[in-house]
C-alpha cells in the first residue's frame, strides 16, 4: 500500500453545517405550514357560496389566468411535501436506514447514509417530474 493511499485513510473528518435531511426538514416545515394555511383559506373561500353574488365575483377573480401560478405553487408544495413525507414514513418504519453496527472512524451515520439518500433522490425526482408535467399543463392553460 503506497503512502499516499494510507494518508487518505488518515484524515480526520468534520461535520458540515447542515446535512441534506436538515434542509428537507426546513422544506417540509415550510410546505406544511403553507399547505395548512392554503387549506383554511380554501375552506373559507368556498364557504362564501351561500352568498350567490359574492360567489360569482370570486369565481371570475379566480378564473383569471394570473391566479394560475398560485395553483402551481400549491401543486409543487404538495408534491415535495408528499414525496418527502413518504420517505419519512418509510424511514420511521425502519426501512432504508441501515442497521446498528460496529462504528468505524470517521463514523458515517447509517440513518442518513446511502440507502436513505437514494430513496430520497428517487422520491424527490418523481415529485420533480410530476411538477414538470404540471408546469406543462399550466403553461398550456395560460396560453
Amino acid at each position: 500500500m503506497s503512502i499516499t493511499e494510507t494518508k487518505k485513510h488518515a484524515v480526520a473528518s468534520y461535520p458540515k453545517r447542515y446535512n441534506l435531511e436538515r434542509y428537507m426538514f426546513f422544506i417540509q416545515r415550510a410546505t406544511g405550514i403553507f399547505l395548512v394555511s392554503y387549506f383554511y383559506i380554501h375552506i373559507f373561500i368556498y364557504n362564501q357560496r351561500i352568498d350567490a353574488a359574492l360567489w360569482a365575483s370570486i369565481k371570475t377573480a379566480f378564473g383569471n389566468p394570473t391566479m394560475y401560478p398560485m395553483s402551481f405553487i400549491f401543486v409543487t408544495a404538495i408534491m415535495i411535501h408528499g414525496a418527502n413525507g413518504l420517505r419519512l414514513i418509510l424511514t420511521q418504519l425502519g426501512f432504508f436506514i441501515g442497521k446498528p453496527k460496529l462504528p468505524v472512524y470517521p463514523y458515517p451515520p447509517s440513518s442518513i447514509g446511502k440507502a436513505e439518500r437514494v430513496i430520497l433522490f428517487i422520491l424527490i425526482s418523481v415529485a420533480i417530474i410530476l411538477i414538470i408535467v404540471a408546469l406543462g399543463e399550466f403553461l398550456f392553460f395560460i396560453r
Partner: protein
Amino acid sequence: MEVVFKIHRFDPSKDVSPYYKQYKITIDKGTTVLEALLYIKERLDNSLAIRYSCRMGICGSCGMRINGIPMLACKTQVSMLKSNIILIEPLSNNPIIKDLVTNFSNLFAKHKMIKPYIIRKDSELDNPTREYLQKPNEFFNILQFALCIKCGLCWSACPISSDNRYLGPFVLAQAYRYISDSRDDGYNERFDIIDSPHGCWRCHFAGSCSQVCPRGVDPALAIQLLKKSITTTKLGLKKIKTAAPVAPPLTEVTRKLDVPQPPPRTVFKNQRDSTNER
C-alpha cells in the same frame, strides 16, 4: 499561522447581554481548538470560563459551537477549519451559565426519566453468579448506542430541541440501547415515556444529531428504530423477547493455555510480621 478567535463572553453577574471578544493567537499545524482556548485562558485572559477535562474526546465536557457547528473542541484541529476567524459559541438550546459553559441539568434529568438501567425480575441481578449470555448479534445491536458520551452536541444541533420537554436525541438513543439490550426486561416500563408527544414522535428526522455526533452513535437511527418498535408493538406484530439467561458453568475448556503456577508460599499466616495498624 495567525488566527483570530471570536469568543462568546457573558458573565451574568456583571454583563447585561452577551458580547464577542477577539483574541489573536499563533497556532501550529496540529493545535486543537481546546489547546488554543486553554492558551487564551492561561496566557491572555484568565477570566475565560470553559468546561474541559480529558482532551481526548471521551469525557464529553468541551462541546461548543465552532463556526456555528456543534463540535468537541478537543476533537477539532484549528488548521482543518480552513478559516482565519473562528467563532466560538456555547451550545444552543441549553441555558448559559457563563461564557462557553451551559447548564446540562435538564438533559441529565431527562436521561434519568427513561430508566437507563437494566430492569429484570430475577434475583440474579443483584446477586451475581455467572454472566448473562450475549450473542455477537445482540452485542452489535446496541454497541454503537452504548458509545454515547452525553456531550450534548446532538441536543444543540437538533432543530426541535427548542421544545424543552422533548426528550432529545441522546436520551432516546439511550432508551433504545436499554430496551433492546438482550439482558433487559423493562420494555413495558419505558413504553409510555417513549411513546409520548414529547418522546420519539417529536423527532422529524432532520438527521442533524447523527451528523454532528463525535462518537458515531447515530441517534437518528435509534429514534427511527424506536418508532418502528412502538408501531409494531401497537399493531401486535412485535416479537416478545425474553431476557438473556445466565451462562451455564464452563464444562468444556476450549482454550489451551500454558499457565505457570504461582511459586509456593514462603511465609505462613502465623508469621505475620506486622499488625494491621490504622
